[in-house]
């Protein structure tokens, strides 16, 4: 019996080839979205983490100093005196170029420069030199090792890097460090085997002497690596002077992780969303697939097949579909992950740390996880309607109206549930706003958004009924009986149409919510940019692209600028990655006297002039993000660890900021220097004298700098453009989600329209029999589909707005730490309307083309 049933199912699948294909596509897309986002999430930081691990080697701990690093003498004392093994280190991520090819732009050659002391490093890292790597240097035969230790600029580079860029031993490389091109030459090669094991790419080793010299860091080391037992480490930590501290190397990747916290949260949210959308999509497709089978099931029941057999058999089919669909989804997901990883890597590289774009590594854990999720969702999605279908008495199963009657009866109950969800959303949002716990807050915010979505979904059936009844009247006027029929069809097939409308509504709400949020964000950012970016020209070391905030202007450059007669004032800006209560923040040093009258900081309170006076007197400004994150108000004190131990700073003011989501403590250069040593200048704002044309001056300045300093000269407007470019880039991945949501909705609508038509074959036959032409039939289908689209858009307007509010005032403010003012954006609303109608009308095209195939005689004979 079961075998016969199975045959029956296979025949069904073969006959309904398109429906089967849609169903598979639905499952595959659902799985793909989940796999894609999750894989990308896992992969984005992998290369960075591997580099950190490889550089860390066998070190169990690291000794770190303040922003300036550890002074040589202190480093030497620690290395000499400690009972544990210790070795000093400097690191820099520089762009490099082969000196024969002189180009002004930094090429794509990126070198991870590591300055080590080979004499104390042997126990930490297993770098080896290719054994035959002895080279000629002039007439003197000198071993690679000796050259490495003794000759300025000697470097060992990895074989892969050398091969990729056609570099040989003795070749000179220019590396961009701190706005200047420095020269290194290749003294030897590090063999591939060593590197592939350690996971380092693009590595260049230099002796610590060369390192200090080319990094412009003479007198300091970045850190000291230590191999020590836990007890020895504790003893060591206790002996360290106040300016140094000991930490586990894992803290370093952890710090980057912390720095990327909100970015990762964003990805995680997207990943959740992907799971949600994916499961919804699978549920949607499977439900349609089973519902189409109701009649068949009814017949089987009439023939005496037990419900159990039907359930088992149909589940078996769903299992087959689930396996194939999920496998397809894994493949699609990997392709998607590749794109998403690229986007994510670009964003992280733009904003946080330089990452090499790496191809996606498959993670069998993730693949298995989502394969199972795909399969289980498919089974679950089919189980609900299958069980329902198998339970109803044989005769009733044939007639769909019974179900529809129930669906309409349930609509108010669903609506009640929907209202409950909305109430929950409000409670969660308030909780998230009040709750201090950042991570918990994020989940509350996410839950609030989810509750809004669920609320809208559950309200959809009732709203559909109400709106359809209302539109029915209009439709009668507009399109007569055809319009009435179309509207009534939506109403009668509520169990299907409501699901399709909800799916479309959900994706439209997401698009609208994101759209409104992004537009509001952009608007707020624009206000800030206008008030804070007011210098005529901005300067940044070219190597900031790779070294981020480690790329510093050399003092010579500042002297050079100070001699320029066209310049009225210079704002020296120094950003330093710092830690406050174990969390990453930034210390910002500015030229307070220069900027106080030139920039319009948006302070939350207080008199501008007084605020600046306090800052100049040694107090600090906190960014709004910092204040929110650590619950600080004006007048509160902030304790920061300085070279002289912990010091208390009073908060003079709080200002709105969009440059660092981690939060920043801003101070005058003098305050910084007193506490952390020499100022680090990472950016410079140049104010020109009134009569100077900034465009012409930018050109002149570039020409004057050429060959001396590698500095990006960015006129004000270009910087503003760049700010928005980075902004848009960081939302690129969101667009992927929007597109996927659109596809989900589209598939939902297309399967809804299809199944509506398939089920109504007889009705269509009657309509044709009583004289309805194809044109009128098409008109009806289009109205039906378009009406569903319009209904979805109608419901999406409030739902999407609510989502935007949750994202702006709950998630962004309290988790991502951005202050955004909600701004109505008509474009976003218009966009979802045309998206809805376009999706709905497109979805009608294929079903319409199938109408011709209906045989009237056969259709009306069916009963």
């Amino acid at each position: 019996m079961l075998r016969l049933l199975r045959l029956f199912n296979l025949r069904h699948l073969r006959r309904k080839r398109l429906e089967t294909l849609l169903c598979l596509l639905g499952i595959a897309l659902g799985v793909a979205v989940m796999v894609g986002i999750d894989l990308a999430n896992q992969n984005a930081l992998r290369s960075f983490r591997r580099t950190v691990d490889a550089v860390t080697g066998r070190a169990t701990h690291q000794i770190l100093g303040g922003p300036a690093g550890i002074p040589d003498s202190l480093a030497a004392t620690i290395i000499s005196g400690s009972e544990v093994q210790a070795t000093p280190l400097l690191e820099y991520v520089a762009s490099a170029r082969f000196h024969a090819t002189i180009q002004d732009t930094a090429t794509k050659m990126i070198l991870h420069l590591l300055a080590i002391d080979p004499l104390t490093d042997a126990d930490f890292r297993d770098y080896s030199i290719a054994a035959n790597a002895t080279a000629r240097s002039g007439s003197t035969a000198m071993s690679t090792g000796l050259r490495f230790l003794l000759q300025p600029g000697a470097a060992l580079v990895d074989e892969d890097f050398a091969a990729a860029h056609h570099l040989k031993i003795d070749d000179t490389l220019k590396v961009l460090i701190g706005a200047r091109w420095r020269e290194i030459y290749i003294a030897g090669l590090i063999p591939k085997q060593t590197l592939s094991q350690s996971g380092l790419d693009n590595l260049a080793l230099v002796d610590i002497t060369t390192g200090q010299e080319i990094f412009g860091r003479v007198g300091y080391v970045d850190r000291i690596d230590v191999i020590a037992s836990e007890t020895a480490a504790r003893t060591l930590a206790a002996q360290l002077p106040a300016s140094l501290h000991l930490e586990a190397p894992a803290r370093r990747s952890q710090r980057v992780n912390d720095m990327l916290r909100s970015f990762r949260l964003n990805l995680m949210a997207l990943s959740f969303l992907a799971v949600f959308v994916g499961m919804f999509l699978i549920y949607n497709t499977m439900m349609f697939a089973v519902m189409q089978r109701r009649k068949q099931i009814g017949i089987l029941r009439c023939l005496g097949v037990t419900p159990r057999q039907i359930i088992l058999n149909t589940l078996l089919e769903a299992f087959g579909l689930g396996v194939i669909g999920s496998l397809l989804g894994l493949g699609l997901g990997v392709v998607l992950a590749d794109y998403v990883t690229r986007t994510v890597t670009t964003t992280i590289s733009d904003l946080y740390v330089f990452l090499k774009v790496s191809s996606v590594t498959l993670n069998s854990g993730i693949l298995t996880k989502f394969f199972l999720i795909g399969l289980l969702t498919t089974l679950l999605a089919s189980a609900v309607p299958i069980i329902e279908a198998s339970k109803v008495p044989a005769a009733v199963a044939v007639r769909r109206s019974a179900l529809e009657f129930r669906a309409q009866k349930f609509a108010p109950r669903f609506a009640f549930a929907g209202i409950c969800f909305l109430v929950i959303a409000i409670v969660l949002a308030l909780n998230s706003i009040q709750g201090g716990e950042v991570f918990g807050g994020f989940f509350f915010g996410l839950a609030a958004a989810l509750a809004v979505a669920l609320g809208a979904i559950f309200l959809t059936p009732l709203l559909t009924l109400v709106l359809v009844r209302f539109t029915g009247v209009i439709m009668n006027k507009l399109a007569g009986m055809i319009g009435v029929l179309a509207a009534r069809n939506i109403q009668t097939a509520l169990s299907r149409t409501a699901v399709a409308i909800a799916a479309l509504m959900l994706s439209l709400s997401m698009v609208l919510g994101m759209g409104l949020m992004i537009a509001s964000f952009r608007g707020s950012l624009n206000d800030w940019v206008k008030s804070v970016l007011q210098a005529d020209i901005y300067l940044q070391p070219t190597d900031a692209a790779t070294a981020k905030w480690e790329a510093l202007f050399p003092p010579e450059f500042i002297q050079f600028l100070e001699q320029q007669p066209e310049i009225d004032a210079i704002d020296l800006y120094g950003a330093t990655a710092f830690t406050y209560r174990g969390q990453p923040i930034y210390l910002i040093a500015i030229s307070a006297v220069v900027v106080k009258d030139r920039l319009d900081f948006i302070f939350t309170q207080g008199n501008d002039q007084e605020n600046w006076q306090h800052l100049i007197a040694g107090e600090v400004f906190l960014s709004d993000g910092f204040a929110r994150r650590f619950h600080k108000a004006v007048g509160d004190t902030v304790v920061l660890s300085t070279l002289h131990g912990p010091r208390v700073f009073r908060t003079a003011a709080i200002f709105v900021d969009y440059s660092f989501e981690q939060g920043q403590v801003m101070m005058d250069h003098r305050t910084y220097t007193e506490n952390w040593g020499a100022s680090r200048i990472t950016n410079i704002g140049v104010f020109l004298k009134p009569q100077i044309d900034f465009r012409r001056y930018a050109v002149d300045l570039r020409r004057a700098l050429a060959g001396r300093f590698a500095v990006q000269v960015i006129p004000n407007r270009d910087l503003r453009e760049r700010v928005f470019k980075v902004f848009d880039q960081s939302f690129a991945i969101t667009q992927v989600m929007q597109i996927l949501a659109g596809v989900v909705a589209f598939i939902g609508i297309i399967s809804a329209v299809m199944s509506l038509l398939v089920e109504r074959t007889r009705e269509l036959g009657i309509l044709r029999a009583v004289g309805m032409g194809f044109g009128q039939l098409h008109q009806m289908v289009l109205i039906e589909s378009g009406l569903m689209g319009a209904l979805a858009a109608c419901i999406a307007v409030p739902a999407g707005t609510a989502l935007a509010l949750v994202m702006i005032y709950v998630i962004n403010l309290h988790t991502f730490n951005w202050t955004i003012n909600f701004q109505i954006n008509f474009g976003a609303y218009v966009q979802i309307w045309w998206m809805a109608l376009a999706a709905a009308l497109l979805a009608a095209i294929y079903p319409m083309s199938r109408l011709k195939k209906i045989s009237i005689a056969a259709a009306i004979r069916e009963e």
Partner: protein
Amino acid sequence: MLRFTLYLLFCAFTTSILAQNDFARAEKMRDWKFPRDHGQHPAYQTEWWYFTGNVKTENGRRFGYELTFFRQALAPAILPRESQWAFRDVYIAHFAITDIAKGKFYYTQKSARGALHLAGADSALLAVHLGDWSARQENGREGEQIRLRAASDFGEIDFVLQALRPPVFHGDHGLLPNSHLPGDAVYYYSLPVLQTTGILRCHGESFRLTGSSWMDHEFFTPIANPQVIGWDWLSLHLSDSTAVMLAQWRQIDGSISPYATGTFIRREGTTQIFSAGNFSFIPQAWWTSPTSGGKYPVAWKIKFLDYELQLRTPVANQELDTRRSTGKIYWEGCVEVSGKKGQQEIRGEGYLEMTGYVK
């Protein structure tokens, strides 16, 4: 493929031939002056200060120790550099303790650049250090004395060494040729009898010890001699208050180099120099290292003057794998001898070094 540091130093030791020409060579007689000659001699590429000794507790529990500092110049002079990490000399130190009662041998090694006080040696007196390991001349209660300090995860020493004899010069007034090759010679003197007192900690246990140590100080500019595959070196303190140093170079054909030498130090401090024919130093039994595969003679028959001694090693495994620092695997450990001088029963303790036994 070799490990990084080893390779660097290996290259430094062997292939910087051209640069070597600019170093001074041990060729002329030296006008020895102390304490200046206890200090470093940067004109010569290689220099070492070797401390070995046998010590015991009041209850007679015996230990051996070795603390050695090597200085190796990478070049006669270096370019002026901005960074304070620039250096000319590599310093390497080996530290070993033999716990005879437990039959255990512990050793470790360190290296550092001669910069930023990470490691260095004074030119005016004996003061060499690498990190917190050091050998320093101090003014003690009984005049000049040497303070030795070293610590590692297995143990720690803090000894005061009092010289009971003046420096003893080997070879021809401290100039000892190693072969017929011109310039293949070393400047070499010893403080042969150093009364030793101090504290030794080994795996948490602390001991107050007394005993006697031996210091060798050599400096030279090495010349590769392909004929020589290794050497055996021995220092002994004998029960008749004499002391002796014996050294022989094993050649590639299995013979002993004619440049073998020895120095006998009488009770009152006068010396007698041996050349190849004056003594015999013959292996009797072998021990094979389970880690390196090296086959070392651990029992020897020794004859010089009217002494006939049987040497044995209380702990067979006193092998040091220092490929990471000096690039060598060698055996250096405490030994004991017993035998006769004529009819007189003689006993003694000392240190034996054997190199070139690992293929």
